[in-house]
């Protein structure tokens, strides 16, 4: 390689390395703030490395798994309450509205709303998270992955 090319190669490579370092450090510094949601454990105990805890009245997003058997639904209206868990404490979510199709017990969801108690969230929006695994029904049944879908009755939908 001739010296001029070598020089250009060094310059371009070092610019690229410099930018990579800057971007890496920035993202590392921002890392917790880029998270879309708090997990139930983080709401109760605070973020793992900063200890930041959301205060009551704050609008936050929470993401976790719906605890099987915790879904309580009002038979007259669309009001529903359920508990979310990741690996520690549970947080109760209250919601009034139609849940997404993928909402099931055991399913990961993200809820957007206001924290009304230390571990109670009044959700204004519930989004379902799905995982990266895709399989036909027969295989899912064979490995016991099938969750039951919730259905609405006519009375609930008419409200």
């Amino acid at each position, binding site marked *: 390689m001739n010296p001029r090319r070598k020089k250009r190669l060094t310059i371009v490579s070092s610019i690229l390395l410099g*930018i990579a370092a800057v971007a890496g450090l920035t993202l590392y510094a921002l890392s917790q703030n880029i998270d879309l949601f708090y997990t139930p454990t983080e709401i109760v105990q605070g973020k793992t490395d900063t200890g930041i805890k959301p205060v009551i009245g704050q609008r936050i997003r929470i993401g976790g798994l719906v605890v099987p058997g915790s879904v309580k639904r009002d038979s007259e209206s669309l009001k529903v309450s359920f508990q979310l868990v990741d690996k520690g404490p549970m947080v109760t979510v209250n919601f009034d509205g139609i849940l997404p199709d993928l909402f099931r017990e055991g399913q990961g969801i993200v809820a957007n709303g206001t924290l009304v108690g230390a571990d109670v969230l009044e959700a204004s929006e519930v*989004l379902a998270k799905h995982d990266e695994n895709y399989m036909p029904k027969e295989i899912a049944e064979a490995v016991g992955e099938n969750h039951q879908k919730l259905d609405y009755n006519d009375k609930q939908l008419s409200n």
Partner: protein
Amino acid sequence: MWKWLHPYANPEVSYHFSVKLTPWLTAIAAILIPVGIVWALAFVPADYQQGDSFRIFYLHVPAAMLSMGIYVGIAIAAFSSLVWQLKLADASAAALAPIGAIFTVIALFTGAAWGKPMWGTWWIWDARLTSELILLFLYLGVIALHNAFDDKNLAGKAAGILSIVGVINIPIIHYSVEWWNTLHQGATVSKLDKPSMSVEMLWPFLICFLGFSFFVAALGCKRFCTEVLARNSMRPWVRALATAQEKK
């Protein structure tokens, strides 16, 4: 070691090579895409959770992977153009940029159409979606810079620097779902582990992905040819080609 590559630095040689390559790439894409899409839409079993909605995977994922792949290609071309001052590398970067931008739009659009029924929202500002949107803006910037200067060498240099700087976004897009909590799920296919998809679902995906890759290659070759002709319009060999065309 790279001696065999040297003749292709000549626009005329590269042009004729691309012209010869285009129909083959087009033919392979024209076979693979219909096979893959029909297989995916009609014969693949429905997903256990998402039912038929998951079939948009076969359009969304190849588009997203190619939007990132094309960008890496552009960055490599820009890098070699800056270091070795290959004018043809600029031409290929300029040819690829709009294709990549369109694939990014397709990935964002199919993602929104998939997100509404499954997640419950068209859009959410999570790390994956936001970084993919930034990729679209990078593409638009690269395209704009390629067209911002009358001097094509200057334009290539400016666009090249932007594409090299922007390449930092590619690993961010890829790892966003691992580094941060996102609504978007993790990688199904593009990871070192075994793909988390049953085999009967995976095969049509690979065919779709290959088909779209060949489609991108064919479009890229075609655009590269026109780009080379436009940039060399005053050269005798281009004029000779034009007069030969007129006589036909």
